[in-house]
């Protein structure tokens, strides 16, 4: 075995594309940023240069509240690389206050059904992973 932690034991780190770079640089700055269409006022995610509702390209980046609720989840028993110490761990869909949903883990709380109640309030936090900062959600007021 080599000592290379980038593949076998490190958690997966994504890479941005030109269209998503402002999202990821926002995460690096500790901000959750979403695009909002300036024509129809629709917040959407994931990032793209065209509003999926009205096709306007007049879209702007906004720093959003980071408030969300727990929409649904699974508790996954077979860990991905780097997740062995977390297993079993929740893979969740969070409902952002501004409208869009995102995938997330649920951190700073035991990942058991009794502690993960649908619609419970959550807030964003950021996890450093290599060069990338990954948005994660935790119970609101947990810190």
């Amino acid at each position, binding site marked *: 075995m080599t000592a290379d932690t980038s593949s076998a034991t490190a958690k997966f780190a994504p890479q941005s594309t030109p269209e998503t770079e402002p999202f990821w640089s926002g995460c690096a700055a500790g901000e959750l940023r979403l695009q909002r269409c300036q024509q129809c006022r629709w917040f959407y995610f994931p990032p793209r240069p065209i509003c999926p509702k009205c096709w306007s390209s007049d879209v702007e980046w906004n720093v959003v509240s980071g408030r969300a609720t727990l929409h649904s989840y699974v*508790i996954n028993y077979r860990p991905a690389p780097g997740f062995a110490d977390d297993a079993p761990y929740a893979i969740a869909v969070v409902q952002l206050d501004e409208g869009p949903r995102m995938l997330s883990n649920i951190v700073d709380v035991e990942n058991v059904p009794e502690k993960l109640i649908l619609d419970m309030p959550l807030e964003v936090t950021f996890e450093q992973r290599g060069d990338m900062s990954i948005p994660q959600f935790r119970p609101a007021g947990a810190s």
Partner: protein
Amino acid sequence: MGLRGVAAIIGAAETTRLGKIPDMSVLGLHLEAARNAVADCGIDPHQIDGVATTGSVNITPVSPVVTSHYLGLTPRWIDSTSVGGGSFMMLVRHAAAALATGLCEVALITHGESGRSGVGVPELGADHTSPWAQFERPYGPVGAPSLFPLGVLRFMKETGLTHEQLAAVPVAQRKWAAMNPRALARDPITIDDVLNSRMVSYPMHLLECCLVADGGGAVVMTTAERARDMDLAHPPVYVLGTGESAETPMISQMQDMTSSKAFRVSSAAAFAEAGITQGDVDHLMIYDAFAHNPIYGLEDLGFVNRGEAGDFIASGNTSPGGRLPMNTNGGGLSYAHTGMYGMFAIQESVRQLRGTAPAQVDGVRISVAHGVAAYFAAAGTLVLGNDIP
């Protein structure tokens, strides 16, 4: 103008073996399935001038270019739609359209997958930039069990579906599998067996997840008109209605985590084209990678109202003797699941319409085969019949 009754499946067969086939590659499974399906209808293979399978470039892992070359065929029409396991319903639809418009005269659609043994499967390259890689993969998903059931807890909260009702899905399908010697899991199970099986991805237990197998299947199609003049080993199975749709490459971005838009759009199109309603359906296949798929399917295809599917299955309506026989080969949960199961659902619909299924249902005239693709990313639906009503 629709596709109702213009095309027919004249040959249909699976690989000779199913389950663990470590001595055959993915490509080998495709070729055997093709040969078996051609033998099933008795045509000269060189009549085939349309070739389709999933797989979009020559190496991932088998495209229609590969199957054409290895089978010595020169296609005038090819299709490599590859959006998940329900792609085979779409390929049948596309083949029907190609046959209807004269793009080809005899079409071959093949499936082969070394899902269990992994023989002849190229390694996937590292993907760090696709939408999925950026916005879902960082959260530690490992295969289908970690993402496909993502909406089940929401479904339970909104509709009242219980864990016991979810567990009743594999119990019902195992009853069909028990009558099918080719099914890979045939021992009867109870709801307690399901709920006591190992947790794979809460709320899904092992027995609520599909089997993993090697195998394949193929169908041969031509126009209904040409089929009538051919000397065939089995009567044709007609394509009466077809539909397809797509929603999102990321399950977290479904508009509604408790209902598949692709299911609704695809099935509505197929039923409308066939000119049928749910009450006309004698036999139903709903691609079941996981126990919740038939529950979503029964509701989204309109067989039951919102929130009724769990009780409908638990009460025996889809079991042997029930009024809507469903997944009568045992399904992905008990028959076999190679990874892209759609071809096997179509095969069972054809067998039921021919009257040759191991667990044959009496009087099947209309069968629906509905395929889910890449979780709830996309869907394809076929209404098949042994007559053109």
